[in-house]
């Protein structure tokens, strides 16, 4: 009968546990392949700028002279394009979302690379 077509579902829902999660108290669902925030192993980075060139959201800025790699966390769309285009496999994606950014906090994360190591002087130079 048309009026009571939901009775079965209603009875089932009465005895089932809630479909929702009490989020901050319980952790959110997360899968191995979930697209979360991007991370960089800055020691591997050669500051070539390919990631920033291929970023659809223009979220990445690479400064070769100052040896910094920075990402705007609010602009990043977690598409993994930078990691795919990285020749040194320095960038990788995690399955964790970035924590919310509140007023007063900066939305740009800056990573500082090690300064370029000076080449050790060769034996000839020492002799001279």
């Amino acid at each position: 009968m048309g009026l009571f077509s939901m009775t079965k579902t209603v009875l089932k829902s009465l005895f089932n546990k809630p479909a929702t999660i009490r989020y901050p108290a319980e952790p959110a669902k997360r899968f191995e392949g979930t697209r979360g925030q991007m991370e960089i192993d800055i020691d591997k980075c050669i500051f070539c700028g390919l990631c920033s060139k291929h970023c659809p959201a223009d979220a990445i800025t690479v400064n070769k002279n100052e040896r910094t790699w920075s990402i705007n966390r609010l602009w990043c769309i977690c598409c993994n394009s930078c990691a795919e285009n990285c020749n040194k496999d320095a960038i990788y994606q995690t399955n964790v979302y970035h924590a919310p950014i509140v007023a007063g906090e900066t939305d740009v994360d800056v990573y500082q690379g090690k300064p370029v190591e000076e080449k050790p002087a060769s034996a000839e130079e020492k002799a001279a």
Partner: protein
Amino acid sequence: MAGRIVVPFGPQHPVLPEPIHLDLVLEDERVVEAIPSIGYVHRGLEKLVEKRDFKDFVYIAERICGICSFTHSVGYCKAIEAIMDLQVPERAQYLRTIWSEYSRLHSHLLWLGLYADAMGFENLFMNAWRIRETILDAMEETTGGRVIQGVCKVGGVRRDISDAKLKEMTAKLDSIGGEIEDLCHVFFDDASVKHRSVGVGMLSKEDAHKLGAVGPVAKGSGIALDLRQTGYSAYGSLDFKPIVETGCDCYSRCIVRAKELAQSVDLIKQAAANIPAGDIEVKVRGNPDGEYFSRVEQPRGECIHYVKANGSKNILRERVRTPSSANIPPLVKMLEGCQMADVPVIVLSIDPCIGCAER
């Protein structure tokens, strides 16, 4: 005769998921004319194609719509692949089909929920969205994203689904199949659903054809227009028939979508059973040179991606015709002569997605 008044409806309205504005010309409670206007969420995504590498534009094409995102990326990739004459591996084609059908499931469940909400059937809305959550979980597990998948790329797909995972997914679909059936049963038979939608928003077959309706709007008016029959991706090797209803009202459009849920489940099972082993992508060399019209079937109907390239890595022009923009003229026709109280139901019945209509 009563004087005419104009009632603005939208862009902000409790039933509207997206900003469309309608000026409703009323005579008492009867709508004489509806004048639509859009332009609230234009983002200029088509222009961006000139600034981005053609391979990177897939990410942007996917973000044209937040619901039928995967089909947009398939449409764009299909155009580029046709221009560059790339042979996409069979396995990738099947995976694209599986994900397209998953996105159809999630889009239709979302719509059924919103439609129930527009009728004031809050309980049904919650139930539809509860089922949708399991579909989104399957998407997140296999692609990494709930609604924006990001797995389709020029030349194939980015991620593979293992055979064990495919079996698990089909088993899961079997178990939620019963729940979907119970849900559809409410839409098919419930007295309040029928009361609110039978005979409301009539669009005759001739009008649907003349005004260029697509997707469930056309199918609900008796036109068997389903682009999946052209056999793109792996649809050519799967067995299905477009679902057609002849009621021409909101109820028929609702039934088409409810029946398409079962059809999508069946298509996913067929694809999972027949998927061949092999590569999931081909290497893309060079740049596209040429133009192509690619047509794909989205949950809302036919979507066209036109791509024109001149051999550089940036594409000259991309034009997208989304199903919602095609369905606005039929909507105006449906609204003529309806009651003011039926307007939310009728507007919802075309499944308006103004975000992608404006891009």
